[in-house]
């Protein structure tokens, strides 16, 4: 018996087990919507139809289903990683308790369905009656000063619209390329953050683009000891000669 070819007919999925696994791993099927218990039952039914017991298939199936369950639990309860690890006995007890709870819920749902079936011939009106009296809306006493205040708002000139953001000037990337190359002719490495001191945010952004461009051209190598630590820029030929260890700022 080939576990991966097990045909499944679930609410959320219909097809071979293999395809289900593939879709789940590709995030194309929400594992949260998959009833794993149904998969287990399908496997057991298939197993029962054959003899002798296919131990190899059982082993493979257990591994796959365990992985699937772990994935699903992580997906459903992402924030509960820190929960106390349960011992095998406690886990079994917990599982049994949950199963019993779920069994009762399923039974309750069944009762509800039966109840609904029994109520099929009870019709009642949804919503208002056709000739329902129109309710009168009543308003508390109002202050005429509120009218004046409202009018004043309408009569006030709006503040002039700021056009400051239209005036952003983007310096050319080439300007920084030249500047960095000039620095690197004098020094084998420099500290990007120190070099940017006193520049506007826009200029810093363009300078960073220039830096990336130099890295792409393999003229420089970049190193950063930690996120948000200063960026060290080194000439490639220098880096080849000496092992440079990033120093935390």
């Amino acid at each position, binding site marked *: 018996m080939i576990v991966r070819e097990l045909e499944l007919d679930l609410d959320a999925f219909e097809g071979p087990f293999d395809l289900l696994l593939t879709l789940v791993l590709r995030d194309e099927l929400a594992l949260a919507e998959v009833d794993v218990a149904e998969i287990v039952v399908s496997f057991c039914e298939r197993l029962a139809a054959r003899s002798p017991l296919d131990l190899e298939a059982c082993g493979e199936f257990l591994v796959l289903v365990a992985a699937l369950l772990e994935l699903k639990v992580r997906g459903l309860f992402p924030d509960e990683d820190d929960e106390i690890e349960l011992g095998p006995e406690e886990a079994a007890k917990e599982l049994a308790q949950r199963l019993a709870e779920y069994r009762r819920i399923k039974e309750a749902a069944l009762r509800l369905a039966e109840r609904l079936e029994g109520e099929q011939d009870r*019709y*009642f*009106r*949804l*919503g*208002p*009656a*056709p*000739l*329902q*009296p*129109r*309710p*009168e*809306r*009543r*308003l*508390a*006493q*109002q*202050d*005429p*000063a*509120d*009218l*004046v*205040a*409202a*009018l*004043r*708002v*309408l*009569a*006030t*000139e*709006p503040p002039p*619209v700021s056009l400051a953001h239209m005036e952003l000037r983007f310096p050319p990337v080439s300007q920084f390329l030249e500047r960095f190359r000039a620095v690197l002719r004098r020094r084998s490495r420099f500290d990007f953050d120190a070099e940017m001191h006193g520049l506007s945010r826009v200029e810093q952004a363009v300078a960073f683009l220039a830096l990336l461009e130099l890295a792409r051209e393999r003229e420089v190598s970049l190193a950063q000891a930690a996120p948000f630590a200063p960026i060290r820029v080194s000439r490639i030929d220098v880096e080849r000669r000496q092992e440079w260890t990033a120093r935390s700022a």
Partner: protein
Amino acid sequence: MDRPLRLITANPLDRLARTLEALLVVASAPLSVAELAAAADDHAERVETALGLLGERFREGRSGIVLEHVAGGYAFRASREASDACGRLFERPVERGLSAAALETLAVIAYLGPCSRPDIARLRGVAADSVVAGLVERGLIAEAGREEAGAVRYRTTALFERVFGLESLSELPRLDDLGEPDDLRTRLEAVASHRPA
């Protein structure tokens, strides 16, 4: 064992009348004779006869449920005798205030005199349809003829004056700094034209 004849001997018109009662008590809109006949799976003439019986049973003075023949067909309503009780059932809590949009609209109409929805929309810089409809429903403004272009104009009502504690519109607080109505309109229009879309 089917005994179809029994239906006929057991005063079927009475059964039909009960079926119509059931349909009418569940309906959320008046039902026409044709609709009732189709639902009851019976003839229109018999439905009309049964409706006659129901009209006799469900009439003012005899029942709290009254069968009413309205434009769209037949429907049950509450008897007039119970109108006070129904009024209490549907009574809404007193609303404390008006929205900013409602106040602005009321202020424009009260101070500038009858205005159309396009007028109000232009002065406020936003569409006025739902606000105007709400104020009409509450009885604070009412239609006051049409302007030349054909749009309906609205004026404030006596209820508006009562709610704001005014004997008449002339008692509205003065807006000295904003000028007379004509100046006010000019000013509001000028501001509106500067407002970003």
